[in-house]
């Protein structure tokens, strides 16, 4: 539940008289259901983490999107959270951009965080310069590289499918990361020619299936497998890829899948799950909440990477990768790959790299800047699939 009052140890009886009687209150606006075992639940658990560590109180509202709550806008929610005493507000979806910008202007004294956005990035394309609105985003690019690597380590047919949601900068950069990871591991651990690796992307059209509007991810996954792929990496919010892989494996096929977003995602079909890259928002959220509480908040753009000393440390790492049972013997190679990323020995955003249409992206030896990675205009050369929706 979102009403943290009962779980807060700081009830008036136990509290020392000199500390403030009121707990720190923050609002959490989620785009999907708070228990979606995906994106929204990860944020929700980040909020829980803050509640626990700070004795704070979270006001949460989920499914804030025009489809689920046509009459509840981000601005309305912020009005009500502020009224309920929220001192910090998290808007946790890319989709909340306009609402949270308007709300930040309306309440200049209330610090807010827009996760996954770029409004506080002074060199970004959409810098808004609002002193009370910061951004936090995890560097899932690393997670996706690990996902791609795991897929390349297991594939026997040399063919990997990527189940894409919709086509935009973010999804392109994550898909490209997976491809780079797959190429590297195919070449360096399997000793095979990465140009022989088939990496196909199919976009269903949205973050989840809307029958009649999007492609059915179940069908897309089937089609990948029927077309010769034996690993499907999921980029969507739901777990059809893993579910289908589990069912087909039970029917005797040798297939695997890599889900996305949520640490527990492998549970639906553990034996075919190669692992899952996930977000861990808690540490970053706690840090920002503390800065608000002690008055040192600054609106910054934070693109937070894994804690390379232990990517799965819940108290320090923003991005993790949970190894799956399906990985088997390949786990050692994947661990080696992660160590390489950690040490900086492996840097995949280095040229020569071309875009899908053959135009150069990075010259030989050139390293991509954060801006180039964030605003990725195309898929990379060698990938099969649509690059843009125009």
């Amino acid at each position, binding site marked *: 539940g979102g009403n943290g009052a009962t779980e807060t140890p700081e009830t008036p009886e136990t509290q020392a008289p000199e500390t403030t009687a009121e707990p720190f209150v923050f609002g959490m606006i989620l785009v999907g*259901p708070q*228990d*979606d*075992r*995906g994106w929204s639940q990860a944020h929700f658990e980040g909020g829980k983490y803050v509640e626990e560590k700070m004795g704070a109180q979270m006001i949460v509202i989920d499914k804030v999107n025009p489809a689920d709550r046509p009459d509840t806008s981000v601005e309305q929610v912020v009005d009500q959270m502020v009224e309920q005493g929220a001192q910090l507000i998290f808007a946790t979806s890319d989709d909340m951009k306009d609402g949270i910008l308007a709300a930040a202007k309306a309440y200049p004294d209330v610090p807010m965080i827009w996760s996954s956005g770029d409004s506080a990035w002074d060199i970004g394309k959409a810098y808004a310069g609002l002193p009370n609105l910061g951004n936090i985003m995890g560097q899932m690019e690393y997670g996706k590289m690990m996902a791609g690597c795991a897929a390349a380590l297991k594939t026997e047919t040399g063919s990997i499918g990527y189940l894409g949601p*919709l*086509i935009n900068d973010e999804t392109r950069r994550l898909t490209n990361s997976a491809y780079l990871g797959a190429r590297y591991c195919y070449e360096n651990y399997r000793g095979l020619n990465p140009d022989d690796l088939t990496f196909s992307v*199919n*976009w*269903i*059209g949205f973050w*989840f*299936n*809307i*029958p*009649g*509007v*999007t*492609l*059915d991810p*179940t*069908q*897309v996954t*089937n*089609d990948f*497998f*029927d*077309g010769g792929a034996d690993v499907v990496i999921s980029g969507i919010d*739901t*777990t*059809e890829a893993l*579910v289908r892989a589990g*069912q087909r494996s*039970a*029917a*005797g096929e040798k297939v695997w899948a890599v889900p996305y977003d949520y640490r527990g995602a492998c*549970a*639906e*079909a553990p034996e075919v799950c190669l692992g899952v890259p996930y977000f861990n928002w808690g540490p970053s959220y706690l840090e920002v909440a503390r800065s608000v509480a002690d008055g040192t908040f600054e609106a910054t753009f934070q693109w937070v990477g894994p804690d390379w000393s232990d990517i799965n440390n819940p108290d320090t790492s923003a991005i993790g990768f949970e190894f799956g049972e399906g990985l088997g013997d390949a786990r050692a190679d994947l661990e080696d790959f992660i160590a390489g990323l950690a040490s900086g020995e492996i840097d995949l955003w280095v040229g020569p790299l071309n875009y899908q249409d053959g135009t150069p992206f990075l010259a030989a030896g050139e390293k991509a800047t954060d801006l180039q990675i964030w605003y990725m205009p195309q898929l990379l050369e060698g990938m*099969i*699939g*649509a*690059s*843009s*929706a*125009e």
Partner: protein
Amino acid sequence: MEATIASIVAAAAPLVFAAVGETITEKAGVVNLSLDGSIALSAMASFAVAFLTGSVVLGFAVGAILSALVAMLVAFSGIRLRLNQVAVGFVLTLLLAALAQFLGNPFVRQPGPSVRPMSVPLLSEIPFVGRILFAQNISVYASLVLIVVVAWVFRRTRVGLELAAVGERPEAAHARGISVSRYRFGAAAVGGALVGIAGAAFSLDVKLGWSDTQVAGFGWIALAIVIFGGWRPVWVALGCYLFGALQVLALKLQPVFPGVAQILPSLPFPLMIFTLVVVNSDRLQRLGERFPFLGRLLMSDAPAALGTNFEV
């Protein structure tokens, strides 16, 4: 190729249950518009039951019973209360979808039990057909058997003939001693149960687990396919497979037309509408009149008494 067809057949199983079930109900003259909500509720309840008890069979049973009750409520409001079935069905659609979401919260995206694959030995070895028809699971087999059985019942049996008469001209059925309301309740119950099985097949076979976004919309698609298939079970089933096949086509077209990749998924609808327009075109109609066999193949009207309430 056969792998793709096999996948389409498997993924379409729930749609087949729902659309063929609704065909049975509508054949008797009752229109159960509540499919979209019914499927959601049954998908949720079936999964919840299977999750709590570990029994997939029990899950299917509960789903079937729930949707049968919903369909009976629609039939009751038409037969006994003389209400507009479309209106009642529509309200139920929205209500049940919300109810499924509300009651299903504890089960959202929980991993749970599911239908196991079950190849038929020997038969699955037959080239082409084996892979499509005999290397599936029991829910897919059931969907295939259902098509054959319902088509046979409609065509060959007394029950099928009487069912059609009840939906076509209830007075004629009544005058012949056929109980119109018993058939209508029966068709609603059987059709509704199949709709419930569709919901269960979503959450226990095809999609696995419960979340409201997973099934929302399929009920409307099933209703549309019943019209598309002209209230004939085999054509309705083919409509379900066509819907899947068109999705695969849209998928294949994505790299060819990257610019419109984002709208290709809705291709099945324009194409199905186009097909209906062609079938209904004057020229084909005239051909159908000239060649009765072709006419029977292409054209099929709605049961004349569909959605009306029978009073003697």
